[in-house]
Each structure stands twice: as structure tokens, then as C-alpha cells.
């Protein structure tokens, strides 16, 4: 490895260029994340105009806080472990094996990700509840139910994140090792794992953050008996009005998450550049049976609650029918001819799709710039640290309470020049902030593994930086970019926490409308909520499927 050979450009110009590239995303993050969160935390730290950090320490010393933190970390670790256990074999099977319908399966596995938690809660509880078909397991209201729910939502993150890296992994080194007598386990350990580790660590850290900040699923499936830091912040802010304690927990959350991100940043570091090419999936062999079996299990695990939803949406009175679907164009059932909704479900779906397009465009554009920024070879330690710091910074929004962020928007973006709290921009920006880490974590491992010597070779043959990027980086990143786009779109379609805070009344998204229907008495409204969820799920599958089909032949075939 001869890396120091080329002459470095003058540091000052280089630094300016990097700073210029970083300034856009950083500005977005500062306005829409750092400012609101610090504004909300400051409300808790400054009591009646005086700075009182002692109060925060006092809150953190409460025994309950220790219990809550322990449960949060424990359940999130368990949820992450289960997601990896189910997701990794499926990522392998769906990206490397020529299984029938694998694209469809891969898209369908994303469905849980977009379903509103309140709907998934209903579906899970219909299965696990006292009267449900799985009621005999006695899981309703236990931590096991919470962990199952977390894995239901997040296994697809692993399938997608790791699958994207696995798909473009050159199979030849592994085949060569096998030809030289290495056992499959040895190939996995010495060839495949080192190449995949960054992607696995990336996905695992995203899943952990999702699990640690899960809200609805913890309350619904845990039967309110198990508090996490996130549910505690909600309770303290909206019911007990204890802003100081909420600020203390928000700070605790930020510190823990930042620590975790720095740790995983180190684990993610790529060992060596990896040859990438779009490998042709091969026919499954007998040794692939465990992976295929696990994929089947995951599919069953994801499909069962969804089947409960579909069945529920088709049950009309004592019989069966499509009445709930036909009603989606209406506005639900108030008593005696009124209506439950301000806009029909179909219109909410259009709102959802349009918002998701905006959010995806923002997330992908920002994510691509950032991914390029943090993966370029660093000159010197400071620069490397800065880059990994920027990387971690954009992961933070996933790990910080949506309640703190939502209220923070209200109290900090309220006057010129940042009078944005009623702006139509707010919802897509909030969704983009949630989707951005998914884009980053999909792109960074791939770009980091591109051999810098290829770029140098392109440059030495006279290609400008843009040309070099187009011929070297883009082919490697094209498919992961589509995968990330689909992923961001799905995440934005299903986002509920921040959206429910910020969505304007005349333009609600589908998850917001479903939530509203479920909070209203009447059989038709309940059926419509389930039917709306099925429509949301189907739309997601179709959109993700279509996005992944998009490709530019000459580039993709490179």
C-alpha cells in the first residue's frame, strides 16, 4: 500500500473546499436540530432566569432514572440483536442468491418500517392478546413483546443496509479462498466479514438508535409497565410539566447516543479497500439452507401481523367485504351522518406521497454530499477526526427524543429571521432529518471501500474531480443510492412522531389520519384505519419496487 506518494494540494485551499461542501448540510442541521433541542433543554436548565445545573444532577440521581435507563439500553440491545439474527441471513439470501421473487420479498420486508406504530400495536395485540391466536404464550405486556415489536420494525434496516453492501461485494476473493481449501466458515471469517463489518456495524447502530427511541411500540406492547427514556420524556413534558427532569433525560440521551456513535465510528473504520462489482446472484446450494430458512422465518414473522391487519380490514360486521376500502374516499363516520375526518383518506395518501418526495430529495442530496465528504481520504489526524465527527453529528437526530425536538421547533423557530414553525417546509425537513442517517449509513460503507488509487489513476489520466467521481465513485454507489432513496422514501412515508407535531391540519399525512381514525369510536372508522394501513403498506412496496428498478444501463453495467 503506497499512499503517501502523491503530492498533497495546499492544505488551506483543500480545507476551504471541504468546509464549503459541509456548510450546507451543517446549516440545515444547526437550524432544524441543534437550535430546537438546545432551546428546549435550556428551558429546563434555566429555572426562572437563573442557571441551575444542580437540579439536573438531582434528577439524574433519582433511582427511577437508573431503572429507566437500564431498561432502555437492555431492550434496545435485545431488539438490535434479534434484528441482526434475523436480518443478516436474510440480507445474504436476498442479495446473493437467485431466489424467485427476491426483489418483491426485499421490498415487502420494508413494509413494517412504514406502518404507524399505533397500527402495528393493534395488529400485534390482536395476535398476542388474551383472546388472540397466540394469547396462550402470555406475552402481552411483557418485555418479550416489546423486543419482538422492535425486531419487527427494524430487521428490514439490516436486510437493506447490509444487503446493499453484500450485493456489490466481489465474490471472487471468497471463491479463490474456497478453491485454496478454505471452509465456508473460514471464508466468512477471513474474507467476507472484514469486508462487510462496516456495513453491519452501520446498520446495527441505526437499529440500536431506532430501538432506543421507540415510543408507541413500548407503550402499546409493554402495557405501560415498562418505561424507556423516550416514554419518560414524553410523560414528563406533556403530563407532569416537569421540564427540568425532561431536560435532564434529554441530556442523558444525547450523551449516551454520542458516546455510542463515537464507539461505532471506530468499529466502522474500513480495514482495506474492497473490489466492487455487481455480482450475478447464484443458484442456492444445500449449504444455503439455514440462510433461506431464516429468511422464511423473517418473512413469516413480518407477514403474520400484516395478515391480521388485512383480515381485520376485510371484516365487515359479521361477514366479509370491501366496504372499508370503498369508504377510504369518504371522511369516515361521525354519529348520525357527521364525518370523522377533515380530508378523505385518499387525499391524505397524496399528501403523504408528495411530502415523502420532498423529504427523499432532501435526504438523498444531503446524504450524498455528506457521504462524499466523510469518506474522502483524510490528510492528518485532525481532518480525520473532523470527518468522523461530522458523520456522527448527522446520526444524532435518530437518537434524540421526537418530543424534545417537536416542542423545540415551536419555541425556537418562532420569530424572524427563523419564523418557520407554520411553514409547509417543516414536515419534509423533519422527515429528511430522520431519513438522512439511513442514507448516510447505506452510502458511507460503500464509498469508504472504494480504492482511492482508482481516483488517483483517473486523475493522472487527466480526469477532473467531477469526471473522476462520475467514473469511479458513481458506478459503485449507484445501486446503494437507489436503495437508500427507496429506504428514505419509506421512512418518510411512515414517519409519525415529528409529523404529528408539525403537520398542518389542512394537509395531514396518511399515518396521522390513521391515528385519528383509531381514536374515534365506530366500526367503520376502525375498519377504515386498518384498510388505510393496508393501502399504505401496498403503496410503499410498489414505490420501493419501482425505485429499485430505476437504473441507468450504461452506468450500472460499468
Amino acid at each position, binding site marked *: 500500500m503506497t499512499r503517501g506518494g502523491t503530492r498533497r494540494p495546499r492544505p488551506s485551499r483543500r480545507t476551504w473546499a471541504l468546509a464549503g461542501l459541509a456548510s450546507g448540510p451543517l446549516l440545515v442541521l444547526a437550524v432544524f436540530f441543534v437550535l430546537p433541542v438546545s432551546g428546549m433543554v435550556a428551558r429546563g436548565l434555566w429555572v426562572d432566569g437563573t442557571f441551575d445545573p444542580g437540579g439536573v444532577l438531582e434528577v439524574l440521581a433519582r433511582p427511577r432514572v437508573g431503572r429507566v435507563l437500564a431498561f432502555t439500553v437492555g431492550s434496545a440491545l435485545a431488539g438490535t440483536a434479534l434484528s441482526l439474527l434475523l436480518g443478516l441471513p436474510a440480507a445474504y439470501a436476498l442479495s446473493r442468491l437467485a431466489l424467485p421473487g427476491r426483489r418483491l420479498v426485499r421490498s415487502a420486508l420494508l413494509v413494517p418500517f412504514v406502518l404507524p406504530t*399505533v397500527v402495528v*400495536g*393493534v395488529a400485534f*395485540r*390482536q395476535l398476542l*392478546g*388474551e*383472546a388472540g391466536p397466540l394469547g396462550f404464550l402470555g406475552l402481552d405486556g411483557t418485555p418479550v413483546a416489546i423486543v419482538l415489536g422492535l425486531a419487527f420494525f427494524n430487521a428490514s434496516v439490516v436486510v437493506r443496509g447490509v444487503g446493499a453492501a453484500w450485493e456489490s461485494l466481489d465474490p471472487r476473493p471468497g471463491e479463490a479462498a474456497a478453491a485454496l481449501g478454505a471452509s465456508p466458515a473460514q471464508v466468512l471469517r477471513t474474507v467476507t466479514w472484514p469486508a462487510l463489518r462496516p456495513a453491519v456495524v452501520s446498520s446495527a447502530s441505526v437499529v440500536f438508535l431506532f430501538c432506543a427511541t421507540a415510543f*408507541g411500540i413500548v*407503550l402499546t406492547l409493554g*402495557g*405501560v*409497565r415498562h418505561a424507556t427514556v423516550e416514554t419518560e420524556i414524553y*410523560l414528563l413534558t*406533556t*403530563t*407532569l410539566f*416537569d421540564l427540568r427532569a425532561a431536560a435532564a433525560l434529554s441530556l442523558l440521551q444525547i450523551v449516551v447516543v454520542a458516546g455510542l456513535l463515537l464507539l461505532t465510528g471506530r468499529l466502522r473504520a474500513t480495514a482495506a479497500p474492497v473490489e466492487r462489482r455487481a455480482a450475478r446472484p447464484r443458484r442456492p446450494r444445500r449449504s444455503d439452507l439455514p440462510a433461506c430458512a431464516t429468511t422464511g422465518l423473517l418473512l413469516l414473522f413480518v407477514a403474520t401481523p400484516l395478515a391480521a391487519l388485512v383480515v*381485520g380490514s376485510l*371484516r365487515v*360486521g359479521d361477514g366479509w367485504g370491501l366496504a372499508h376500502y370503498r369508504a377510504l374516499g369518504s371522511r369516515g363516520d*361521525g*354519529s*348520525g*351522518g*357527521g*364525518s370523522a*375526518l377533515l380530508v378523505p383518506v385518499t387525499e391524505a395518501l397524496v*399528501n403523504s406521497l*408528495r*411530502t415523502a*418526495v420532498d423529504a427523499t*430529495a432532501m435526504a438523498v442530496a444531503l446524504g450524498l454530499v455528506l457521504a462524499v465528504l466523510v469518506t474522502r481520504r483524510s490528510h492528518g489526524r485532525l481532518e480525520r477526526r473532523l470527518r468522523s465527527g461530522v458523520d456522527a453529528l448527522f446520526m444524532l437526530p435518530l437518537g434524540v427524543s421526537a418530543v424534545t425536538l417537536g416542542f423545540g421547533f*415551536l*419555541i425556537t423557530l*418562532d420569530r*424572524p429571521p427563523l*419564523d*418557520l414553525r*407554520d*411553514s*409547509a417546509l417543516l414536515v419534509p425537513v423533519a422527515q429528511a432529518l430522520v431519513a438522512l442517517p439511513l442514507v448516510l449509513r447505506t452510502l458511507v460503507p460503500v464509498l469508504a471501500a472504494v480504492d482511492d488509487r482508482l481516483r488517483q489513476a483517473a486523475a493522472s489520466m487527466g480526469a477532473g474531480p467531477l469526471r473522476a467521481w*462520475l*467514473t469511479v465513485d458513481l458506478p459503485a454507489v449507484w445501486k446503494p443510492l437507489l436503495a437508500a432513496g427507496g429506504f428514505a422514501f419509506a421512512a418518510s412515508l411512515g414517519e409519525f412522531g415529528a409529523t*404529528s*407535531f408539525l403537520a*398542518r*391540519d389542512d394537509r395531514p399525512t396518511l399515518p396521522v389520519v390513521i391515528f*385519528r381514525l*383509531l*381514536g374515534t*369510536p*365506530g*366500526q367503520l372508522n*376502525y*375498519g377504515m384505519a386498518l384498510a388505510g394501513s393496508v393501502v399504505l403498506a401496498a403503496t410503499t412496496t410498489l414505490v420501493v419496487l419501482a425505485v429499485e428498478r*430505476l437504473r*441507468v*444501463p450504461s*452506468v450500472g453495467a460499468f
Partner: protein
Amino acid sequence: MKTHALAGALVALGVVTAGCSALGDDGGSSSGEERAGEVILVTHDSFELPDSLVERFREEHGMELIVRKSGDAGALSAKLGLTKESPTGDAAFGIDNTFASRVLDEGVFAPSDPTLPPGAEAYALAEGGDRLFPVDVGHVCVNVDDTWFAEEGVRPPRTLEDLAEPAYEDLLVVPAASTSSVGMAFLLTTVAAFGDDWRDYWQSLLDNGLKVVDGWSDAYYTDFTQGGGGGSRPIVLSYDSSPAFTVPKGEDEPTTSALLETCFRQVEYAGVLDGAANPEGAEAVLQFLLEQPVQEALPESMYVFPVDSSVELPEAWARHAVQPDEPWSVEPAEIAANREQWLREWTEITTR
């Protein structure tokens, strides 16, 4: 060639984005000087009014009524308290008697002087009656599935004490006081009914197999036998108006009923926000909420009773939604002083 294809893809992407973006059309912010012809009502998720009434307001007052909803009653109160220096609207609706003292103490509302409809005086606040005005009233009551009890040949419960009887073991499901305003109302019911002994009562409920779930929809749709989700518990915490929604098609009688001795009164108030950009508009909205057209629309759009006693109720309501004569209640000031303590103790008891 490659670059061409890529450019094509980018252009296509741009077109798609421009075509289906939500940002392109109107979306204009409604702040600052542009707000002359608008008045903003801040409220919770459950607020709903027919379009025709919103249109009527515009015609009568020459102002656009903009409704901003977010979160439940608790989130609304928190939001109003946090934004009191720079309110997000002009008037607010949806503060109930369990949150009233709290927001009044924060100084969120400005004094006002609307004309109250007949009968509304009965629901006025003792303290802060010059700033918050009653708009609607509802009751949180235990509901029972009459068909279930008829089939099982068991006499349905009637009182709070009954619920702790062995005959009703494993039959009751309620939403949690910590995460649901309905659940909070039930906690207050028990405080009103049993005084300091409410803790023992909850313990006896738990010993009798009480199930506590996250929210109202969870309890009603998933666990209640008449909720449609195939639940197994025939006793649930809901509203006095809920039976009106369980009349099967082609029949006259509802399949459920509310236990009128277990009800807690929830009154929802509205007021003019202190520091409103459009105080005259806010006054107009407040008066609008108290006038007959809105009062008449309340049952069908928000599932609550009007405070105006002269309003005629919809037929299903008049027949099947029976209001309790003597509901339980707790003084708003007492609630404000003890809410946190009660909730902490309740959490200790139910999660032990």
C-alpha cells in the same frame, strides 16, 4: 454516453420532484403582516367542525378561520405553556378541567367577555372564569357489553365497588392514567369517590385482574368484546356517548351501556390567548364556539355534549347517550396541586 444517461436520469428525477412536490403550491407562511384576514385557533387532535361552519365564520366575520391541531389535551397544554411569550395562534380550544388550573397559572389566557349560552354557567370555572369559557361537556364512564352479560347470565356491575367483586374478575380493561386523558379521568374518579383510600381501591382492582393498556383505542378496539377486534373483556373505560355507536344496523337498541354511577365530568374550555396577533378575531372565534350552530354540531363532530341546554340533540344521542345526573368531580385547583403526586403513586401501584 455515460454522462448523457446520467444527465437524463437527473432531469427525469427533477421533473418528478417538481411535479409531485408539496412545497411548490401555496404553502405560504401565514405569519407577520400577511395575517390580517386570518384568525388561528390552536387545539388538540380530536377537534373537528363541519366545513360549512368554518365557511360560515368566514362569511360572517370576513376572516379565514385556520385550525391548528397537535397532540392530545396534555400536549396542547404543554404547548400553550411553552409558547406563551410568542403564541402559535390567537385563540385556543380544548383545555379541560384537569389541565385548566395549570395553564391559567402560566398566564396563557387573556381576560375576555363573551355571551354564554343558556345553561353554560353551570360549567364555569370558579377561578379563572373570566379567561376560560366552557364549550362542551362529556363524561368518562365505565361501559359494559350487555350482550356478553346476557349470554353469560351474569348481572352486569353497577358501581365502582362492584368492579372489585370476584364476579367480575379479569373482565375490566382501562387505559393508563399516565398516557391517556381518559385514564387520568378514571384515576380522578377514584380519588373523588374514595378520597385517600383510592390507592387501596386500585390495589383491589389489580388483585381482581384489572388490565391496564396504553390508550383508549387500545382498550376499546383490542380488548373490549364489542370493539370489533375480537377482545375478551366485556367491561371497558370509555364515554357516556359510546353506547350510541353500538346500535347494530337495522336494530333499535345498543349492545352496550354506560354505568352512570362511575362517571367523571370532563368540561372543555376555550379562551383568547394572551399576546394574540389578532385579538378581535380571537374574540369572534370564542363567541362562535359558544353560539348555537357550533353547539348543535358538537355531538356529531366531536362526540361531546354541548353546554347550551337549549340545543336539540341528534336522535341517536337523545335515545342512547344518557348523561349521568351526579358525576364525580375534583376541583381544578386540587388537581393542579396533586396531579404529579397522584400520577407517581398510581404508577408505583400499577407497575409493581
